[in-house]
């Protein structure tokens, strides 16, 4: 049994251009670990969406990844403003992104829906004023 691999990333809240570093790093590691291309792609897309959310909405946050040959688990935790209505935030096209973010091509309201769509397991918990916690997993056999 291979020992699980743990990766830690910090997404800064003040430098929007650095969002994407964690997903790029994860992708290259998954490739060298021999994960199936389809699983790599789904994990990278989901994590990238998560990074963008942390940078835009949460003022930064932490990402913890745990890898086994069967699972890519990703945990995203922040101490941002929280999401008042999760069901609404999960609906495609809903966005609270400010205009300057939208002008960069982000904020289309597809972040959370895409994270759910590209992963096999997805859960979200959020408390207004305290932060948001997302757990998602991509199964390599799936």
């Amino acid at each position, binding site marked *: *049994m*291979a*020992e699980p691999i743990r990766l830690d990333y910090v997404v800064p809240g003040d430098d929007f251009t650095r969002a994407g570093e964690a997903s790029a790093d994860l992708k290259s590691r998954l490739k060298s*670990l021999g994960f199936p291309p389809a699983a790599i792609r789904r994990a990278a*897309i989901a994590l990238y969406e998560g990074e963008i959310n942390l940078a835009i909405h949460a003022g930064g946050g932490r990402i913890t990844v745990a*890898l086994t040959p069967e699972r890519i688990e990703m945990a995203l935790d922040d101490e941002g403003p929280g999401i008042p209505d999760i069901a609404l935030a999960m609906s495609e096209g809903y966005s609270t992104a400010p205009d300057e973010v939208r002008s960069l*091509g982000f904020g289309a309201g597809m972040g959370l829906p895409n994270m759910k769509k590209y992963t096999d397991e997805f859960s979200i918990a959020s408390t207004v004023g305290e932060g948001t916690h997302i757990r998602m997993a991509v199964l390599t056999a799936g």
Partner: protein
Amino acid sequence: MGEFFHSVTLDRELCMGCTNCIKRCPTGAIRVRDGKAAINPERCIDCGECIRICPHHAKKAIYDPLEVIERFEYTVALPAPALCAQFNNLEDPDLMLSALRGLGFDEVYEVASAAELVSEATRRYLARPDVAKPVISSACPAVLRLIRVRFPGLLDHLLPLIAPVELAARIAKRRAAQRTGLAPEQIGAVFISPCPAKVTAMRMPLGNERSALDAVVAIKEVYPRLLGLMKTAPVEPLSTTGRIGLGWGESGGEAAGLISTERYLAADGIENVIRVLEDLEDEKLGELDFVELNACSGGCVGGVLTVENPYIARVKLKLLRRYLPVSRNHLPEQAEERLRWDAGMEYQPVLELGSDASESFARYSEMQRILAALPGLDCGGCGAPSCKALAEDVVRGEAAVEDCVVLIRERMEAVLRALRIDPGDPHRTR
């Protein structure tokens, strides 16, 4: 893995064992071992970056000498669109094509003409409803090989059509056979190439079982001889290409030649290409129909076998194309099927750490332990491009941690201290 042929090779005599090439290689294919560079044939994509960077000219491309035409009864020269862009004040492609015949070729058929047919086939392919968008151009052989080793998730986006030079070789040989009655093997289709990767593509084709090309001669080899002949050779009306065909010689030309869509992107230069492929893989680039990628800056005019500065070459190409008709070659109905690849394109997982998940995981953990002990300077002194690459080589059993010159120096200093010798002045004991 079978045998490998690569056009890009090393001249061991000239190699000084410096670190320029290992740092530049986009697939991490080069290491310096025993004072000389060594290219890993599984990883090399023939992009030519090491040829560009090597200050000692120890990296070179293998191609055929012009004398190769003596091997055939009948020869057809297939000039790349980039060839037209090498000359000053060339206003008529016929001047250059006539000089090319003067070199001893029986016939000339422009790759640009075949490129117009590929443009048309691409247009029809893009119109199909079942196509994975964006479609990624497959004409640059170095990009094709890069995708095959680094971007498996994008393989199904590749345009599954043969490259213009391959189509040109097929057309030229068929026509020459009809005209002369000779057997195909007596006819030589000779590409006049800006690009070493095309030499590799001829010997080890991707996408199709075998190449119709018989030889690849470098633009820089024929260039000086053409200069002379262009002054003397009688000019014949040989050119059959339009603006779209010649446009393939520069970055953006293939995509612009599609006309049917404006939703395209063209990136050139291997680093830019990699950045675009990473973003495509992550679906960051929005709704595009077509992506044109060229490993060389400026496109094919930037190939390492060319003569002219690629930016000047682009200006020359633009001037030459100015008064040409848009396109002079048209594909018959349903003929696009004949341009389809006849072999699959499979992922080559040469960057994986192990042969299966458990080996990869074990090696990964070991690699992290080694990496933590390395200095993190990425100095290249060990012969690997970075500390991470050295750690990877160690777990693969191809290098030792002791190859790290910084670690060795630290250990030596520790030994000297233990012996109470001053490392700054070994003759004096403390």
